[in-house]
């Protein structure tokens, strides 16, 4: 008996007779996805992007991307009679004169902040679990591209209303452009269509923001997801999970419900934020004038690290034969993010080269099992975080009664001192956790129940590790890095490429040398599979509550 309504059957028939989609549909319906909460972080980003597209399209019907001066005559009192650009005026109108305008503006902006934050947590998850390893390096690169475009898109978006705060950000961007050697002034004049602020920049930014970048991002996202679909998602070690399979639930109906439901949740949470928490009140900032500014001028959070780096940079500038090179602007705003993005983008290849690991990986690492990688990741986050915090140093100084000069100096020093400390601490924590896993495997979990043996001895009962957890705890045996090759071959001739090989082996060694070995079969057997120190036979399924209490 068929439960599908006739129209579904009819439509399916119509399509199939033209495209022959049964195979694809069947494979899609049955496709298995693993079920872990940390696999949904990328989804938050994807759904936020869709929310941005929907709300952005609506906003585009009302926004006027023009800097033509108008005099405001709308309902908002404090701006009555004030001259402003049409872009700003239309944004104020959307907020106060169009039903649904303010909520759509706020949902759009909250979604943008959440979008980039979700990309970041997704990036962290992928990094710390090693999901970027072969065969997923290309997807990692796509993700880095999406992150870069997301930053640009967000910056462009909040600069469109031409308000005092975002205009200040554009002024800074213009100054950054100008600092570029040789071509800086030309770039600045071409991009802005003349002197700052110019008539052309807001309209151009508009095209970039609603057409060019979303188009590129849509394409990149499509390929990104297609790759995940085709290569199948990774999964954590666990019962039944191998490198050769994927364990989870079928796409239909399970993931249609869960992932589809999550889309509604993301949209819902963003809407609730937009309903109850104010964001970007441009009517209070006022229209942009290059002679006005507010204390506490910050960009949106995801540009904050660049703001912090600009603030912390010492004032180095050199004059070379009548030409100025502004290191104080170039390094923090262009060189630094360029380096950071490049290293991040190349990381999968660097790690593969260093470790010599050419294998496919579909089972994820637990972060503790890769102490160096995890340490490097935390180090990078701390580095980024220090810059990010410094971006708000004047707000912090004001709210916590500190000196901005002191915070700036703390950043300058902390930026180089704290990350290595973070690395060492993280690595030690990982090794400690590995040790604890080993202990748990060998000796079981402490139940806190003290048992007195007939001989009079007191022991603590240890509960053996259930088999599902044992799989998890045993996972992560790391390969050894490649052997240090001999410096000379058999004829005493120095080997070509030897230096590079030695460097590679040294770094690989550093990467893998500190590991706590997982217990071998013999060790596990010898310890009686996690029973107490004494060879007390306890049935594995016995729950601690059933033991007699003394």
């Amino acid at each position, binding site marked *: 008996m068929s439960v599908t309504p006739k129209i579904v059957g009819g439509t399916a028939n119509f399509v199939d007779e033209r495209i022959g989609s049964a195979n694809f549909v069947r494979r899609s319906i049955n496709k298995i996805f693993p*079920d*872990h*909460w*940390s*696999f*949904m*972080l990328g989804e*938050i980003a994807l759904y936020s992007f869709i929310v941005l597209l929907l709300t952005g399209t609506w906003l585009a019907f009302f926004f006027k991307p023009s800097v033509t001066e108008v005099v*405001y005559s709308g309902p908002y*009192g*404090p*701006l*009555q009679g*004030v001259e402003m650009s049409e872009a700003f005026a239309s944004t104020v109108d959307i*907020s106060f004169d169009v039903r649904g305008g*303010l909520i759509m503006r*706020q949902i759009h902006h*909250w979604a943008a*902040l*959440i979008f980039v*934050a*979700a990309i970041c947590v997704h990036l962290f998850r992928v990094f710390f679990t090693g999901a970027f390893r072969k065969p997923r390096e290309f997807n990692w690169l796509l993700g880095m591209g999406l992150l870069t475009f997301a930053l640009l898109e967000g910056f462009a978006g909040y600069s469109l209303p031409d308000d*005092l705060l975002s205009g200040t950000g554009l002024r800074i961007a213009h100054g950054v452009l100008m600092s570029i050697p040789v071509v800086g002034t030309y770039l600045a004049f071409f991009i802005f269509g003349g002197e700052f602020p110019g008539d052309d920049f807001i309209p151009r930014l508009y095209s970039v923001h609603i057409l060019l970048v979303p188009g590129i991002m849509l394409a990149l996202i499509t390929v990104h997801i297609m790759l995940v679909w085709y290569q199948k998602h990774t999964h954590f070690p666990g019962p039944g999970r191998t490198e050769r399979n994927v364990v989870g639930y079928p796409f239909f109906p399970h993931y249609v419900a*869960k992932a589809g*439901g*999550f889309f509604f*949740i993301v949209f819902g*949470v*963003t809407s609730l*934020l937009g*309903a*109850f*928490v*104010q*964001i*970007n*009140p441009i009517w209070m*900032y*006022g229209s942009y004038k290059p*002679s006005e*500014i*507010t*204390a*506490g*001028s*910050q*960009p*949106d*959070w*995801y540009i904050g690290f660049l703001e912090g780096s600009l603030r912390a940079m010492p004032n180095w500038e050199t004059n070379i034969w009548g030409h100025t090179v502004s290191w104080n602007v170039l390094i923090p705003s262009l060189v630094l993010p360029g380096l950071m993005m490049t290293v991040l983008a190349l990381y999968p290849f660097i790690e593969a080269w260093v470790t010599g690991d050419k294998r496919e990986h579909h089972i994820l690492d637990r972060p503790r099992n890769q102490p160096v990688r995890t340490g490097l990741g935390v180090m990078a986050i701390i580095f980024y975080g220090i810059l990010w915090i410094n971006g708000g*140093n*004047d*707000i912090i*100084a*004001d709210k916590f*009664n*500190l*000196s*901005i000069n*002191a915070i700036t100096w703390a950043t300058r020093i902390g930026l180089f001192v704290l990350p290595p400390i973070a690395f060492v601490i993280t690595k030690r924590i990982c090794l400690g956790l590995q040790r604890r896993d080993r202990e748990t495997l060998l000796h079981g979990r402490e139940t806190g129940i003290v048992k007195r043996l007939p001989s009079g001895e007191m022991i603590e009962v240890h509960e053996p590790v259930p088999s599902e957890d044992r799989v998890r705890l045993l996972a992560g045996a790391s390969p050894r890095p490649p052997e240090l090759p001999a410096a000379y071959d058999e004829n005493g001739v120095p080997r070509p490429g030897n230096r590079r090989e030695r460097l590679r082996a040294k770094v690989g060694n550093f990467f893998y040398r500190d590991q706590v070995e997982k217990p071998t079969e013999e060790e596990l057997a010898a310890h009686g599979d996690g029973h107490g120190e004494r060879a007390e036979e306890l049935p594995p399924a016995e729950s601690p509550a059933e033991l007699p209490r003394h």
Partner: protein
Amino acid sequence: MAAAVVVLLALLVTGGAYAVLASASRAEANARAAQSLQIDEGRELFLENCSSCHGLRSEGTSDGPTLIGVGAAAVDFQVGTGRMPLAAPGVQAKQGPVQFTAEEIAALAAYIASLSPGPAIPTEEQLAYEDANLGEGGELFRTNCATCHNFAGQGGALTQGKYAPSLEGVDPKRIYEAMLTGPEAMPEFADTTLTPEAKQAIIKYLKTIEAQPDPGGVGLGRIGPVSEGLAAWLIGIGALIAVAVWIGARSS
């Protein structure tokens, strides 16, 4: 008989005139006497409470600047907001509990004003801001004030731990006095450069946006993207990760 009437009239007129004029000048004399009494009281208060830092003749010491020329407005502001007497040494005098009564403050102000001309306490007329131009007030505020006090008057950081305080809930008279006298690091905006009309417009703008609710919801302190970013991470990502954990959790 007529002569007697004329003399009586003349006596009445001269007597009456004298009485009126004398009372007027007596009132003046009383006022002057009262004023000099107030100045004396002010001097007494000054010597007891202020001279240790500001000098016996308010010429200033290493602990406090000279008060010559600061005007009654400065005294009214500093003492009236509890900034003075300085409660504790630091980079900046903080607002605090007011240590003197209104009469005492008036006396101190009168004394300092008597030493040398300076900005006077703003009059009712100067403080009448209801008819000021709101739009221009916003423009003036953003041009002159927002760079220290932030776009919504929430305050901001200066160098070395100094700060421009929040203007929320501050009495219009205090705002006027602060602009007029430039307390501590704040520059002086004399009535000759920032006219009373301009000051009124600024005050009107501040009071208007202060009274205005945040139509978008919780204002997050009106300090801009820093608090918005925190909210996006803590509330937005926090809630969504919580939901993701729920989705992925094994169902019992």
